[in-house]
C-alpha cells in the first residue's frame, strides 16, 4: 500500500477508499512503514501494523525493541521520521488523541493533588466537559469501590490504589482505542484481575485494545492478535491462533502405563524423534515427547495402544515466548 503516494493524488485517494474500504472498516489503526531514528540509532525500522477493530492486540518484544516508541508515535507524543498512520480510516491528527486512551509504562499522578480534582483535570484535558467527567468519575469510583477517595491526596493512597485511579483516568473518556503499556506491573494479583475483567468488558463494548509488554506469557491468553518486535523491526504479526498453528511442530506429549517402557522407547526412537523421556520403573509409567511426521496421529495411536494403556496424549502448542525465540533464532541464522 503506497499510502503517501495515494494521499498526494486526491483522485486516486478516493478510489483507494473504495478499494480498501473493507480494510478501513476492519482496522482501527493501520501503521505503514514507520521509521524513527534517534541520532544514529534506529528505534523503529519500517514497521507496519494493522490493528483490527474491537480486538485485543498484543505488541510483544523484549525491552528496547521499539514498542514504547511506536506507542508514543500513535499517541503523537513523538513523530515518525517516515511512514504513515491511519486512525479509524483517517490520517492520524491532533484531534484523534481524545479517541485514544493511553496508560504509559512510566505512569504516576500528582502526589499532592486531591484524587477528585486530579481526575477531573485529566479528564478535561482529554476533552470531557466538567459535569460529564464528574458523572462518569462517580460511576467508576462506585464500580471499583473507591467512592470515598474523592478528597484524598495521592500520596495518602497505596500504589495499587493509585493504579486504579490511573486506570479510570485512562478509560474515562471512552476512547475507541486503548493502549496499555506493561499494564499489570504494579498491580497485586487481585487488582490485576479486577483490571483484566474491566478491560475484557470494555472490549465487549466495542473498544479496541493494544497491550504492550515484554512479559509475553502475561497477555497471551487474552490477545487475539499479536505482533513481535525485535531490534526495532517487526519480525512477526497476525492472528495468534494462526501463528500458533503455523509454529506448531507436531510434537506430542504422551503418558502411558507400560511394563517394558525402555524397549518401547528404543523401538520408537528408530523411526521417530524422541524429544525427552522419563520411565518410572516401579510404577511402570512412561512419559515422553515425540515428534511425528504429520498431524495424522491415528496409526501412531493404534500402535501405541497395542503396547499399553495411554493416560494422556497432548499436542504441545508453542507459547508466544517460544515462537519469539524461534523466530529470532531463525532470523539470525538467515542473516
Amino acid at each position, binding site marked *: 500500500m503506497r499510502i503517501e503516494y495515494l494521499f498526494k493524488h486526491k483522485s486516486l485517494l478516493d478510489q483507494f477508499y473504495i478499494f480498501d474500504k473493507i480494510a478501513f472498516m476492519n482496522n482501527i489503526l493501520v501503521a505503514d512503514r514507520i521509521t524513527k531514528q534517534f*541520532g544514529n540509532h534506529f528505534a523503529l525500522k519500517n514497521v507496519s501494523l494493522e490493528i483490527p477493530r474491537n480486538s485485543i492486540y498484543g505488541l510483544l518484544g523484549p525491552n528496547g525493541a521499539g514498542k514504547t516508541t511506536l506507542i508514543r508515535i500513535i499517541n503523537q507524543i513523538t513523530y515518525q521520521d517516515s511512514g504513515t498512520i491511519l486512525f479509524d480510516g483517517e490520517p492520524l491528527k491532533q484531534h484523534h488523541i481524545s479517541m*485514544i486512551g493511553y496508560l504509559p509504562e512510566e*505512569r*504516576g499522578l*500528582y502526589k*499532592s493533588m486531591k484524587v477528585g480534582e486530579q481526575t477531573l*483535570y*485529566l479528564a478535561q*484535558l482529554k476533552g470531557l466537559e466538567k459535569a460529564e467527567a464528574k458523572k462518569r468519575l462517580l460511576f467508576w469510583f462506585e464500580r471499583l469501590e473507591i467512592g470515598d477517595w474523592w478528597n484524598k491526596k495521592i500520596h495518602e493512597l497505596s500504589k495499587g490504589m493509585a493504579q486504579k485511579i490511573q486506570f479510570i483516568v485512562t478509560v474515562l473518556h471512552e476512547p475507541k482505542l486503548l493502549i496499555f503499556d506493561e499494564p499489570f506491573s504494579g498491580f497485586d494479583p487481585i487488582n490485576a484481575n479486577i483490571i483484566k475483567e474491566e478491560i475484557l468488558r470494555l472490549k465487549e463494548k466495542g473498544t479496541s485494545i493494544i497491550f504492550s509488554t515484554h512479559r509475553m506469557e502475561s497477555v497471551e491468553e487474552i490477545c487475539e492478535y499479536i505482533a513481535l518486535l525485535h531490534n526495532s523491526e517487526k519480525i512477526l504479526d497476525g492472528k495468534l491462533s494462526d501463528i500458533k498453528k503455523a509454529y506448531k511442530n507436531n510434537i506430542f506429549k504422551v503418558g502411558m502405563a507400560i511394563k517394558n517402557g525402555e524397549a518401547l522407547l528404543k523401538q520408537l526412537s528408530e523411526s521417530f524423534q524422541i524429544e525427552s523421556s522419563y520411565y518410572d520403573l516401579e510404577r511402570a509409567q512412561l512419559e515422553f515427547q515425540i515428534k511425528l511426521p504429520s498431524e495424522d496421529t491415528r496409526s501412531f495411536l493404534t500402535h501405541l495402544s497395542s503396547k499399553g494403556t495411554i493416560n494422556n496424549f497432548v499436542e504441545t502448542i508453542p507459547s508466544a515466548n517460544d515462537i519469539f525465540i524461534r523466530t529470532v533464532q531463525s532470523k539470525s541464522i538467515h542473516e
Partner: protein
Amino acid sequence: MNKLGLIIRREYLAKVRNKSFVIMTFLSPILMVGMVVLIAYLTKINDSETRIIAVLNESSFFTTDFNSNENNSYIVLRDLNLEKAKDTTSGLGYYGLLHIPNGNTVEAVANSAYFYSKEAPSNSVLDKLDAIFQDRLRQQKLMELGVSAEEFANIDNRFQINTETFKGQQNLKGINEIKAFIGGGFGYLIMMFIIIYGGFVMRSVIEEKTSRIIEVIISSVKPFQLMMGKIIGTSLAGLTQFAIWIVSATLLLFVVMSFLGIDATGLENTSVMPQGAMSNMAPMTPPTNEMQLYANELFQIPWAMLIFFFMIYFVLGYLIYSSIYAAIGAAVDNETDTQQFIFPIILPLMLAIYVGFFSVFSNPHGPIAVGFSLFPLTSPIVMLMRLPGGIGEGGVPVWQVLASIGLLLGTFIGIVWLAAKIYRIGILMYGKKPSYKELFKWLKY
C-alpha cells in the same frame, strides 16, 4: 475551557494553595521590614557608644579644640609624661590616648601627634581627630594670610548649587540617586523574581518527571502547551504575590505619610504650580518642609510609566528565563543535577545588577548603560534602572526603549522555541544526566 487555560488554572492553584506560598507572601515583607529595622537599630547601638579619649597636650596649641560630643568625650591629662599617660589611659579603660608633643608651629605639632589605643582605632574616631587637626591647620594658614577669626567663620559656609532642568523643573539634591535607587529596586525585584519563580517552574517540571505523570499529560496536550501553561500559571501566582505586596506597601506608605504629617493631596497641587513659584519657594524652604519637597519630587517620578514598563520588561524577561528553567527541569532527573545548568543563567542576571549599580547609577546614558540595556538577557534589569529618569528628552531615547523591547521579543521567540525542543525530548528521558553536548543533539531530534 481550552486546554491551555486548564493547565494555567491548575498550575496557578497548585502554587497559590501551597502553604509555603502563603507564608512567603505574608512573611517576607514583615521579614524585610524587620531586617531594615534591625539593621538600623544595630547601627544605632554601635554608634551610640561614647568613647572616652585621653588627651595629653604638651603644646600651646589645640587647647580649645577638644570639645566632647555624644560619641567622643575628651579628658585632658595634665602634668604626666607619655609613659605614665599611656598606663593611666589603659588602666582606666579609656578608648585611647592622643599625645600632642610640644613644638614651635602648629604644623610641626600636628605632624608629630600620635594616637595610642589598645586595638586599631575605628575609622569614625580617626576621622573626627583628623577633622580637628585639619580645621585647626587651615585656620592657622588663613590667619597667617591675614584672615581674622570672624572672617574665617564666615568663609566656612556650606554651599550647594541650585539646579534646574531646561524645562524649568526644580531639582533637589540627591533626587537622582533616589531615582536610580528606585530603578535599581525594580531591577533587583525582576532578578529575584526570575530566580525564585524560574526555580518554581523548574521544580514543577522535575516534579512531573519524578511523579511520572508527564507522559499521561502529554498524551492529552502538546508538550509546548504544558510548558507554556506552567510558565504562565506560575508567573500569575507570582504577580498575585506582587499585587498583594504593592497594595499593602501603598497602604503602609499612606499610613507612614500621615504619621509624618505629609499631605499627599497637597502634593498633587504643588507639582502643577507655576515654575516661578516653585523656584522662589525652594531657597527659603525651611528644613522641615524639605521632606515635603522630596515627597513632592517622588510623586513627580513617572510612576505609571515605570510600572507599565516594569510589567513589559518583567513579563518578557521572565518568559525568556523561565522557559530556560523549564528546559533545564526537563533535562534532569532531580534538582541536584541542575547546578551546572543554572550558573550560566544566573550569570547575566548578576552581571546586569552589577553593571546597573556601578555604571548606570553614575552615568545612566553612557555607552555601557546603553549597551546592557539593549542586550536582551540584561535589558529587563538595566533598562528599568535607567527609566526613572524618564523617556524622551532628558531621559532614555525612545528608539532605545523600542529597540530593547524588539530585541527582547525576538529573543523570547527564539529561546522559547529552543527550550520547547529540549523540553519535549527531556521530559521523556529518565536516568541519564545529560551533558550540554547531548542537549544540543536533542535540538535536532
